């Protein structure tokens, strides 16, 4: 009898102890703040970090969600399906991305990098906040075909996610707000600023450009930097570059937003960081090589029924940027100095 009592006390203590331990673990968890990198050659951050401060737990949750198929209707298409790290988070091998049920989208997946520094998102700027951008691929029938409420239900049914959300959001559960904030915490950390070019302009590690790279940079500054401006290589405006319209898609670009005729066939000036890896090029992925892009600027701007950007107007009234063979070669050599292997191989962003 006495023995039994003792045994049950010991047992009770054990239970008590183990409970206390796991609770303690959660209660004692102090989120570790993470800093979004601010390279000295970059403009200011646009994302309001104060509204969604990045922590290790929030970032890890965001990464898990980014690689989570459950965000789609068939539980198979994760964000990473179309945004692969090795290709600057683009959909490798696809001109137009495809998603659930093999639906083909209308556009070429954009690279994901330096998103904290962008004001607007998508080729036409249809999204004005990084937190809300993911709702578009999630709800698109051609991409993930899912609803926020289904995702919240699916995740809330998984005990591990409940724990992850509590850790990341101060004891709060799975909500669409927290899910989107976690994704943003992951995305704002994706800063690409350690290419050869960056080290060169910041005078780091004694990096110098070769002659052809330097010549390319000079030609680029004269001919391209009015649109591909700052060290983000985009002025974040929308421009009509005179790409002939693909009649099958008839993608009117920014015009779709407000039906303003002045916006016809305007697309966002893309950043050229990691451009060597993010092929194919343009909003519909029509060019597979940088050579084709430069030939286009030099001699293939045919125009469209919108108004082609003035920056591309030659003195004789035709459109294009005159480039010699050497200028093209050197510009391409320069563009390759924008490849940031540290970013493309950064394990913090990798699935495994």
């Amino acid at each position: 009898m006495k023995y039994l009592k003792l045994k049950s006390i010991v047992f009770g203590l054990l239970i008590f102890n183990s409970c206390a331990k796991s609770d303690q673990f959660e209660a004692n968890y102090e989120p570790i703040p993470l800093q979004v990198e601010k390279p000295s050659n970059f403009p200011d951050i646009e994302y309001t970090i104060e509204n969604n401060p990045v922590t290790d737990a929030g970032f890890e949750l965001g990464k898990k969600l980014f690689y989570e198929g459950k965000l789609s209707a068939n539980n198979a298409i994760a964000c990473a399906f179309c945004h692969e790290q090795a290709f600057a988070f683009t959909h490798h091998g696809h001109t137009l991305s495809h998603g659930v049920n093999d639906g083909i989208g209308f556009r070429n997946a954009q690279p994901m990098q330096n998103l904290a520094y962008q004001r607007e998102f998508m080729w036409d700027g249809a999204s004005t906040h990084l937190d809300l951008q993911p709702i578009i691929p999630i709800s698109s029938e051609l991409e993930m075909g899912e609803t926020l409420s289904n995702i919240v239900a699916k995740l809330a049914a998984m005990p591990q996610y409940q724990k992850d959300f509590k850790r990341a959001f101060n004891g709060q559960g799975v909500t669409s707000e927290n899910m989107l904030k976690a994704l943003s915490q992951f995305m704002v950390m994706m800063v690409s600023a350690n290419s050869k070019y960056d080290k060169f302009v910041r005078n780091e590690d004694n990096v110098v450009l070769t002659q052809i790279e330097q010549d390319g940079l000079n030609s680029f500054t004269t001919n391209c930097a009015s649109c591909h401006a700052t060290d983000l290589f985009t002025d974040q405006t929308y421009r009509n570059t005179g790409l002939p319209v693909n009649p099958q898609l008839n993608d009117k670009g920014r015009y779709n937003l407000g039906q303003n005729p002045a916006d016809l066939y305007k697309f966002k000036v893309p950043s050229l960081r990691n451009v060597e890896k993010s092929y194919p090029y343009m909003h519909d992925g029509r060019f597979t090589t940088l050579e084709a892009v430069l030939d286009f600027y030099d001699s293939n701007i045919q125009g469209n029924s919108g108004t082609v950007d003035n920056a591309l107007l030659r003195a004789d009234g035709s459109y294009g940027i005159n480039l010699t063979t050497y200028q093209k070669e050197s510009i391409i050599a320069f563009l390759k100095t924008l490849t940031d292997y540290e970013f493309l191989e950064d394990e913090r962003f990798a699935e495994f």
Partner: protein
Amino acid sequence: MKQLKYTLVLLLCAIISSCSSDNDATTENLTGQKGSIALKFDNGVGDQNFAFNTTYQKSNNESFQLTTDLKYIISNVRFKDQNGNEFAVPEGNNMFIIDQDDANNAGEIFLNLDNINAANYTEITFGIGVDQDKYTQGATGQGNFLTLAQDKGMFWSWASGYKFVRLDGIYTDATTTNGALAVHMGSVGTSLDNYKEVTLTLPNTVLVRTNKSPEIHIKADILKIFDGETSVNFADGYNQVHTDATETPIIAVNMQNMFTVHHVHND
């Protein structure tokens, strides 16, 4: 003499009671008291009640019926009391979707607002849609409203933005019979702000107390969306209103003027 006595007593009574009721209004201590207010939204078309699949006439010999959706977003609800003090419904619970599908058999859609400071309110203000401040905060402060909005089809799938109003049905004009009618107006990113606020004077004072839950009956005249400040015609493209920079602000202003407070119940 006896009569005089009675009169005096009566007079005294009257004075006392009037005094005490005066006291009530000026010195009743309401600090810390919370109550609730129910807003009762009641959609109509001109002088008729609204019903789905019913044809309504508008100007220019055009007609319409809504078949599936009549919804709009209400936010930033606040009240002004008799002394001019404003009380805003607490953040985090101040965005709502008025959805005809949620109406009771009398066609009324109730919106219950709790945690309202006790006061004597004379004015109500609310927004139609989501303001830019809130919108530019992204997911912050949205809680599960994004989920609700998406479930109710009030969030675009191709752009990240709310539809402030959603009317879906069919219309008939001189050249088209039963064409598709869709008015999905909202702000377009940060470049086009269609958020509008409405301020309505309450016909009698709304008394909020811990033990009093008054009701404000708000009528919305859906016809005004087409025949309001500006009359618009389906024949001119208003059968499909989405993000157009000229059409949507006209619809937004028309909606701003479609609400009236019909009456108030103080229970």
